[in-house]
């Protein structure tokens, strides 16, 4: 066998290994986290851990409920705040904006999508927390430090904008011209065409964008951690502090080796987070396929 073919074969084997390795990473991670979680899972059943509300590691109490609630509060708030403006803006950019305007705004949004989480956190501390403390809360008749679920939701919403917008805008733009024409030829106004036909066609893509945004919001750690207060209690209002799951893991890595089972609990939290994020990804894929099957034309 000549050297060229030998070289080809050897390198191919190496490349194969690299590929297989990359593909397996996610499974390896899940496995490792699971391994590390088993100590705490053997002391209490999972359901108890998830539903218990008291978090006192030094007493051996590991109730995850406040953190799950904290995550839900902040994430759902962020999505509720960000979906309507994102959608409206995507429609505007795709259908109504003059070319020059789109040419400036779209790259700007994509650029801003790359801002690191800690920088958003810094902005949150400098702008959003005082905003909540000095303006929003007094309007609601509440007094607070500003480090609240509301602040977390606001910062997260801003972070999620670029994802939803960039995908939705592309999807809306790619709706075929014939479908638009069919509607216009019947005498529909531009807005009617957009509302009834264009958005409908683009729906699978838009939903995928939203789910992707949700997944990102869920796992977002640093920015939220810096503004949300980090008190391990179930929030009962927007102006309470919260403590989402990623923040739990991030805040306590320092102490985790010194208290028994603490590290295992945090690894379990990480595992839960991982599984939930994976779930979102799979969900997005399934919904996309189902809707595409039902509604695409041609």
């Amino acid at each position, binding site marked *: 066998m000549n050297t060229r073919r030998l070289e080809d074969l050897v*390198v191919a084997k190496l490349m194969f290994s690299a590929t297989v390795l990359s593909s*397996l990473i996610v499974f390896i991670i899940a496995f490792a986290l699971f391994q590390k979680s088993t100590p705490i899972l053997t002391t209490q059943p999972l359901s108890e851990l998830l539903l218990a509300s008291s978090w006192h590691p030094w007493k051996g109490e590991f109730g995850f409920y406040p953190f799950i609630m904290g995550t839900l509060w902040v994430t759902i708030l962020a999505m509720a705040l960000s979906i309507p403006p994102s959608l409206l803006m995507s429609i*505007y950019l795709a259908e109504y904006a003059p070319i020059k305007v789109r040419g400036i705004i779209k790259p700007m949004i994509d650029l801003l999508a790359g801002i*690191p989480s800690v920088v958003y956190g810094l902005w949150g501390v400098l702008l959003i927390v005082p905003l909540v403390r000095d303006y929003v809360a007094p309007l609601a008749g509440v007094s607070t430090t500003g480090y609240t679920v509301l602040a977390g939701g606001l910062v997260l919403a801003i972070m999620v904008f670029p994802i939803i917008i960039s995908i939705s805008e592309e999807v809306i733009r790619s709706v075929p011209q014939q479908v638009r024409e069919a509607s216009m030829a019947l005498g529909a106004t531009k807005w009617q065409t957009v509302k009834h036909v264009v958005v409908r066609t683009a729906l699978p893509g838009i939903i995928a964008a939203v789910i992707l945004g949700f997944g990102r919001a869920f796992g977002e750690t640093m920015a939220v951690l*810096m503004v949300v207060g980090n008190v391990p209690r179930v929030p009962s209002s927007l102006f309470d502090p919260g403590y989402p799951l990623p923040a739990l893991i991030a805040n306590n890595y320092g102490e985790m080796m010194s208290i028994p089972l603490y590290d295992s609990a945090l690894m379990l939290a990480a595992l839960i987070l991982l599984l939930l994020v994976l779930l979102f990804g799979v969900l997005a894929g399934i919904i996309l396929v189902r809707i595409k099957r039902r509604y695409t034309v041609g």
Partner: protein
Amino acid sequence: MDRRKLEENIFKGMMIASTLIVVGSLLSVFIVVILKGAPALSISMLTQIPKGGYYLGKEGGILNAIVGSLYLAGGATTISFLISLPTALYLHEYAGRRLATLARQSLDVLWSVPSIIYGAFGFTVMIYLGMRASLLGGIMALTLLEIPIMTRVMDEVINTVPLRLREASYALGATKLETAWNVVARQALPGILTAVLLASGRAIGDAASLLFTAGYTDNIPSSLFDPVASLPLALFFQLGTPFPEVQQRAYASGAILLVIVLSLSIASRLLIKRFTKYVIR
């Protein structure tokens, strides 16, 4: 008729308002961080390490973080490159459909994993190996972060290499390796560079994965096993102190980090533009 027009105009107004809100808030992030950070930037800030005590020292600058971030991102990007490029080329030239789909899907999944998970995972590996928080640990975690990004972007870019180019190479009797290296990689070079810039931009800005794995220090590491500072963690740790001098360091870190990340982003965007200028859609 008037009702239709009215509805259209109301929604148009809402659309423009939304656009202004979104663009305004994103711009305000940039503005606030730069406004706070710029005054803190000075020659001494950039060229000195913090002095006087376990990162509460009031003097000195953030050189530890700047150099630390460069070491971390440089190391991670290099290792990730050595894994991602072969993977991307393999997926394109060699892999069967099943392996290719599996690989792409699992990389896509990996892309959306929050970076704190990489930190937690890295931590378990480090405990297992008896390592302490160090430069090496941080590099490992960031490599995990960069691999899916770099690989998938390279994958997309390589996909745009026209079939006829590869055919031409094979028709001349080239092996797969020769085609992959000489033709495909070369054609896709700007796109490959873009992938590298994108991934390293992401890595430089990440804090969550470094919390567990890289440690923090006032000094510049002299070996792979020393703990290392990083710009994101410099910002994070030093923001909450009661000492204004230390806070200044946090703001400076934030501003520098923002500038670095945005520059990388702009550079990769320009590269993409140059790359697609000659591609036929």
